[in-house]
């Protein structure tokens, strides 16, 4: 038991001390490839099809509970969500490879209100241009990938969100 606690403490110390600095900015994808469609359920059992959101600006984040930078950016995503949902911008977070129980457990420490979708067999993330977690895309109203961020970001930073908001205009 003491050994388990030691490694838990070690994990928390190493993972949190390393996960302090977010990435910066959004990369424009000049070719604007079409976002691969998907149909996934969220942890409340609701189904989400990407094609149903055509006409909206979407932020789509691929993540996992064990991924330190993913955890690090979640609170800023929630803070951003509080503002952007009023503006008609949507946010979806696609969990890669984990089940409802593990995600529910995670939300006890990281409460978020935007939909948490489950890609348990990783077929959706496999169809998207994602190699590491977290990776986030901004999808324009035509369903195209416009911006990408590899690694965590401070999503409530107004400068980061400015180009996302501009896609509505």
């Amino acid at each position, binding site marked *: 038991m003491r050994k388990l606690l030691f490694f838990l403490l070690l994990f928390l110390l190493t993972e949190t*001390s*390393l996960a302090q600095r*977010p990435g910066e900015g959004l990369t424009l994808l000049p070719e604007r490839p079409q976002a691969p469609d998907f149909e996934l359920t969220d942890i409340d059992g609701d189904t989400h099809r990407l094609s149903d959101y055509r006409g909206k600006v979407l932020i789509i984040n691929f993540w996992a509970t064990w991924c330190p930078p993913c955890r690090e950016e979640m609170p800023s995503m929630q803070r951003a969500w509080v503002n952007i949902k009023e503006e008609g911008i949507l946010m979806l977070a696609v969990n890669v490879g984990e089940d409802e129980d593990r995600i529910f457990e995670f939300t006890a420490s990281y409460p978020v209100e935007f939909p948490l979708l489950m890609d348990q067999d990783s077929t959706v993330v496999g169809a998207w241009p994602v190699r*590491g977690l977290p990776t986030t895309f901004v999808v324009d109203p035509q369903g195209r990938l416009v911006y990408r961020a590899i690694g965590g970001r401070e999503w409530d930073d107004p400068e980061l969100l400015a180009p996302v908001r501009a896609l509505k205009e």
Partner: protein
Amino acid sequence: MRTEPNRRRVSAAGVTFLAFAAIMLFGTAGAEVITAKDPETGLLSWTWREGGISIELVQRLPDQTRAFFLGRGFPGEAADLVGRSCVFQTIFRNDGERPVAYDLDDWAVLFRGSRLPLQTRKTWEKEWQAKGIDQAARIAFRWSLLPTTQGFEPGDYNWGMTSFGLSPGERFDLELVISVGGERVVGEIPALVCAADR
């Protein structure tokens, strides 16, 4: 087009961490390697830096890695195999001004006069298929490793484990190859140490 950078934060723990750092400068191409010991965990780290690009390798204890994968559905024997494979937590950042790309298959472990390949997602996937490890565990494993190939625009970064296939406590040098704005850059991190099996 790039959007404006957001603010950076450095924690007090990070400052303490760096206070223990020792810097070794390498003459080739202006790269530097910083070695450090975390005063709280005792784990060693090595950071290679050049032109705003940094590659940080932090020791992971075999038990730390075993516990992680046991918690993700791996049987004890498989978790032990990974735990004893010289695993480092790796943070690759591009805070420079040009795009960066890498392929871990171009990197080499320099060990006792031999050049050895890294153990990548593909290497391990074959192992897990042969051992009949279930899909959920394999998915968790695949995504927890540093991507085998990746491209970073300025401001991007990834975390992930890298495994070097050596026994706990072994020493080795790492030859790394990256592309910076299309230009090939070769670097070396000397005298890395796989964490001991405490």
